[in-house]
């Protein structure tokens, strides 16, 4: 497999099987495919960009180290999200984290920006305040509820995929999703929204 186009056309599972044989180019392709969405996943969980980068790095290293044992029993996206979720749970346990109180961690030097930075300062401040409120509302959820909400609302994964990632039934996913939205709704009402 020499042609770069060949790599781009391969499925995630096929790429991972090549990674199992030691193909770094395929691993790098997978990395590019999942980097952004996983970083968003971690960022919405933790609210901390630098911490999210560390967890992203850990996820891919763990995928690489486990390549020799990889079997395509499920979709690769399910596989990598399971790893990401476990890493996230461990991180929460380690840090007993409350998500960052301040949005100051976001900034030019951290390599990220808020979409719409061309807005005037007042609008930027308002946007950041709204984002902070969303984080606070997500904080009231259990880890399962928050993960399901993030995977559905932000990562836009179907319930069947979420159920595989969470290792539960579709019914349980829907139930927790419903409960999560009920809590968010109650929070919004308490805060006059």
């Amino acid at each position, binding site marked *: 497999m020499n042609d770069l186009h060949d790599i781009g056309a391969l499925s995630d599972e096929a790429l991972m099987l090549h990674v199992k044989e030691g193909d*770094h180019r395929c*691993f*790098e392709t997978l*990395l*590019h495919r999942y*980097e*952004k969405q996983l*970083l*968003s996943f971690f*960022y*919405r969980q933790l609210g901390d*960009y630098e911490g*999210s*980068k560390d967890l*992203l*790095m850990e996820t*891919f*290293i763990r995928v*690489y*180290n486990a390549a020799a044992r990889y079997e395509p029993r499920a979709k690769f996206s399910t596989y990598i999200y399971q790893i990401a979720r476990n890493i996230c749970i461990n991180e929460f346990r380690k840090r007993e984290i409350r998500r960052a109180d301040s949005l100051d961690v*976001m900034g030019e030097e951290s*390599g*990220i*920006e*808020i*979409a719409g930075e061309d807005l005037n300062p007042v609008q930027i401040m308002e*946007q950041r305040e*709204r*984002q902070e*409120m*969303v*984080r606070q*509302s*997500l904080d009231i959820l259990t880890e399962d509820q928050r993960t399901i*909400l993030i995977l*559905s*609302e*932000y990562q*836009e994964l*179907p*319930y069947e995929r979420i159920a595989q990632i969470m290792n539960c039934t579709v019914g349980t996913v*829907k139930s927790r*999703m*419903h409960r999560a*939205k009920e809590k*968010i*709704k109650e929070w*919004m009402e308490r805060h006059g*929204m």
Partner: protein
Amino acid sequence: MVCKKVQSLLSDYRKGRLDPQTHQFIDQHLADCPDCRKALEADETISEFLGTLESPVIRDSLAPDVMQKVNQLEEFQRRPLRQLSFSRMPPLTRWTLIGSMIILFAVVGFFVFTFKSTESQYYTAYGDAGYTWMGPQDEELKQLFESTTRDVLSSPMEGGGSLAAIVGPEQSDQNDGKVVHTFDLTVDEQDRIVTEFDIEEPEEE
């Protein structure tokens, strides 16, 4: 019952994820059910609220850092043991190795020192008492030990040792001009005396 089912599908309904038949069914149900319409509005409001938290815009891909780490891991795994660079080992491995080496040297050193202490002070046994001298390597003392009457006065001491004195040809409570050697004696299982001792100078007459 129907409303509960419909409301559980509202999120997918809004995002157009349902099959055409189910989508149409919900369309018709919403036309007749104010409760479900209200639930749909609430679901839209919540999604709009959640959508405020946007994805971070990534400027610098992490791919180079990850691949560098992967290459380091591979290099470490490929390298023969004798070529392993100590400084390139993961920190945990490095410190575990250092700690293990320190403990190993300490244990070996203890046994060597103990054995050496025992061996270097070995004197051959002689005489009726059957004891073997294990004091320091001191020729004068050794000769004194071998030449004097080996009347060993001993008394129990705390810790299991005993105080012994080897006096000159005449037993005496006083020095009587003779050098008195007092010892803390212990006798091992091979009847070898293990001692530490002080040499007392004879008193002036």
